[in-house]
Each structure stands twice: as C-alpha cells, then as structure tokens.
C-alpha cells in the first residue's frame, strides 16, 4: 500500500468482490445445518439408549452414515465461514489475521476430514 497520493492509499483496499458469495454460502450451509443437526437431535432422542452397541447399530446403516458425513461437511464449512467473520471483526493486525485464517482453514479441513474418515470406517465395517 502506498502512502503518497490519496488514490495510492486506498488502492487494493476496496471490496474483495467475494462478500456476497460468502454471505450466500453461510446461508446455504445454515440450511444444511438446520436440517442435518435437527435430524441428529431427533435420531438421538429415538435411540433406545446411547450405549456403544445401540449407536453403532444405527450409525453404520447407509442413510444415517451418509447424513452424518454431510452433517460434518456442512457444520465445518459453516463454522469456517462464520469464524472467518469473527476473526476479521476482532483481529486487525494484518499478519495476525493471516495467521488466524490460516489456522482456521487447517482446523476446519483437518477436523472435517477426520470426522468423515471415522464415519466411512464405521460404515465399511471396521468396528467390533
């Protein structure tokens, strides 16, 4: 960023041209979360109990396993978008902001990958 002319000071600081897309994705993933987490809440309430055998019997079936994988993707994506806004609101120093967003991306992708991996492993039969 230049500090000479007034145009030089503001050049590059305008709209990133991706705000509307971010906003819309936050809504799409919010709808996904709404459906999928409510489904999980109802499923938990309908299980006879939360012991290992009961949960396994339920989660390894194709539809619950697919829905759980989608739930992991939707919630992690939504949380990544949402926390990005929180970081942008409170972390002002450029390098710190960059580090926070980088860490957020790593955590979001890593967490979602781990969750989906666990579900696939369960669904494909690697359990007692």
């Amino acid at each position, binding site marked *: 960023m230049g500090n000479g002319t007034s145009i030089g000071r503001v050049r590059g600081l305008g709209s990133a041209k991706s705000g509307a897309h971010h906003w819309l994705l936050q809504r799409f993933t919010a709808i996904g979360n709404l459906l999928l987490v*409510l489904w999980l809440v109802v499923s938990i*309430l309908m299980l006879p109990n*939360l012991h*290992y055998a009961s949960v396994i019997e339920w989660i390894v079936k194709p539809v619950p396993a697919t829905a759980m994988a989608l739930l992991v993707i939707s*919630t992690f994506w939504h*949380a990544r978008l*949402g*926390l990005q806004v929180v970081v942008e609101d409170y972390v002002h120093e450029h390098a710190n902001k960059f580090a926070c967003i980088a860490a957020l991306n790593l955590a979001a992708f890593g*967490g979602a990958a781990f969750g989906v991996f666990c579900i696939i492993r*369960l669904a494909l039969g690697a359990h007692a």
Partner: protein
Amino acid sequence: MGGVRVADGKGIRKSMAEAGTKKNRPLSPHLQIWRWGPHMLVSILHRVSGSGLAFAGLGLLLWWLGALASGPAAYESFAGWVWADLGTLDWSGTGILTGLVKLILKIVVVGISWSFFTHMSSGLRHFVLDIGAGFELGVNRLGSILAPVAGILLTVAFWAILLLR
C-alpha cells in the same frame, strides 16, 4: 431504539440532544454507554453461541465419532468423561480433579445443546430479516425476545425427553 442515550460521566443519563457542550461529550460511543436492548442481546448471543458450537460443539462431535470408530473401550472412556455417572465419582485424591473435570464436561454438554437451539432460533430470525421482513420496531423487538426464549425452551424440552424417556 427510541432515542440514543449517553451518560454524562456522573451516572446521569441524558438524551444525545441535551448532552451539553462538546467538552463532556463522549469521544466515541462505548459499549457501556448504550442502553441494552433485546436486539443487542440476540446479536451477541448469535455470535457467542455460534463460536461455542464451532469450538466445543464440533470438538465434541469429533471426539464422539473418533471414540465410536476406535471401538467399545474408547467409547466407554468417552462416555465416562462427558456423561459420567455422578454416583460413581470418587471425591478423594486425584479423584477430586477428575470429578471436577467431569462435572464441567456435563455443563459443557448442556451448554452446547443450549447454544445449538439458541443459535438455531436466532439463525431463523436472520432468515426472516434476510428476506426483508420483520423490520417494524415492535415486530423486530418481539422477534429478538422470542429467539433466546425459544432457545431455552427447546433445550429444556430436549433434555426432558432424553432423560425421562
């Protein structure tokens, strides 16, 4: 919000118009200066609950899935931590520490459920506002009161069904 109010430093509240000379006006609006309304509460609750869900909620989700994928022993250990049978806790020696952690985890689990239902309610309020509806002062205020109340009621209903079934 029906007239922004400012404090004059002696705890006396005046309207912006009668706030006196330039000298004793606040230099910039400050959090304490605003009269709290339900709109501000619902706004900050949405952020707090969303962030809580992201860290604690998604963390718990992964712990649960990881424990399930690791087998019955890991699942027993997971369940013993997050939803311990309070009667079996041993309050002596290091048991005090693990007992406290298990108590806190119970509060965290209930807190996550409250966060979800509260965030869901204020999220639905966001959807209404997003389509341009609900901006009349009375309706808007009502919605910002209903959202957190619905969050609490849904949380109570969830735990009542889960524990009393």
